[in-house]
């Protein structure tokens, strides 16, 4: 059951990314391109996707907080309230740079692998290499 619920959660996540068009980097860049606001070409999709996600995830976390433990596991593995530090901000800056260059963040890049496009494979391999590298040098 633990694995089945993981599979279902992953599938819902991937379906949501694909349905909302977030697997398409052009759509994401259409949101990030604020010059489009003045030109009338700005695409607000990403903001609506975030709003839809938060509208469901927020009550989900509220319910989780009222439970002693999750349904299928002995304990919650949710991070506590840490401080904002340099790793957090520097990491977010690096992520923002890469996201703005290509329009892929980790979820959509993986959900788009099934398109079979070479560009997705190249980006996905580089992303995995970056994560692997972090595990080697900076952890």
């Amino acid at each position, binding site marked *: 059951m633990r694995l089945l619920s993981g*599979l279902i*959660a992953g599938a*819902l*996540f*991937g*379906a*949501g*990314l*694909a*349905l*909302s*068009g977030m697997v*398409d980097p052009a759509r994401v860049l259409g949101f990030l*391109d604020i*010059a489009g606001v003045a030109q009338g070409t700005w695409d607000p999709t990403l903001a609506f*996707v975030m709003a*839809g*996600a*938060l509208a469901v*995830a927020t009550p*989900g*976390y509220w*319910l989780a*907080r009222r439970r002693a*433990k*999750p349904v299928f*596991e002995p304990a*919650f*593995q*949710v991070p506590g309230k*840490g401080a*904002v530090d340099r790793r*957090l*901000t*520097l*990491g*977010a*800056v*690096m992520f*923002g740079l*890469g996201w*703005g*260059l290509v329009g*892929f*963040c*980790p*979820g959509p890049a993986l959900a788009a*692998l*099934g*398109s079979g496009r070479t560009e997705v494979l*190249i*980006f996905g391999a*580089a*992303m995995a*290499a*970056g*994560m692997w*590298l*972090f595990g080697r040098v900076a*952890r």
Partner: protein
Amino acid sequence: MCFVAAWGYRLPVMTSFDPLTALLGGALIGLAAALAVLFNGRVAGISGILGGILDLDRANMPWRLAFLIGLIGAGAVMLARPEATIEITGSTPLLIAGGLLVGFGTRLGSGCTSGHGVCGLARGSKRSLVSTAIYIGVAVATLFVVRHVIGG
């Protein structure tokens, strides 16, 4: 929205901005995040899930693999529809540079659009709010420079 076959009607494919489909897709993502925390006590953060697999963290491997299989599988099924298209404009060096930055940066910063942007904001984390504000701001600035300063 256009509808057809599958199980009576076809899921819509967004070609131009469609607020209802965007909200519905977002709600599915939020539902996935809610299920992950309620049933498995986990943050549905993709960089954490993939990074944990690459770090060979054995204890959490089965759930993370199951989630990734679902994510990639559902994406593949949805993208198999002929009307679902994606457009990638970057050159190979740009894709590699972007991938490395996204991979390293999301691990260094402990999360991405899903872990900080959805799960973190949903549980009211200040770290996630700061992270989300920074990566969206930097991405907007980066794209502006690439498209309208260098490219313009």
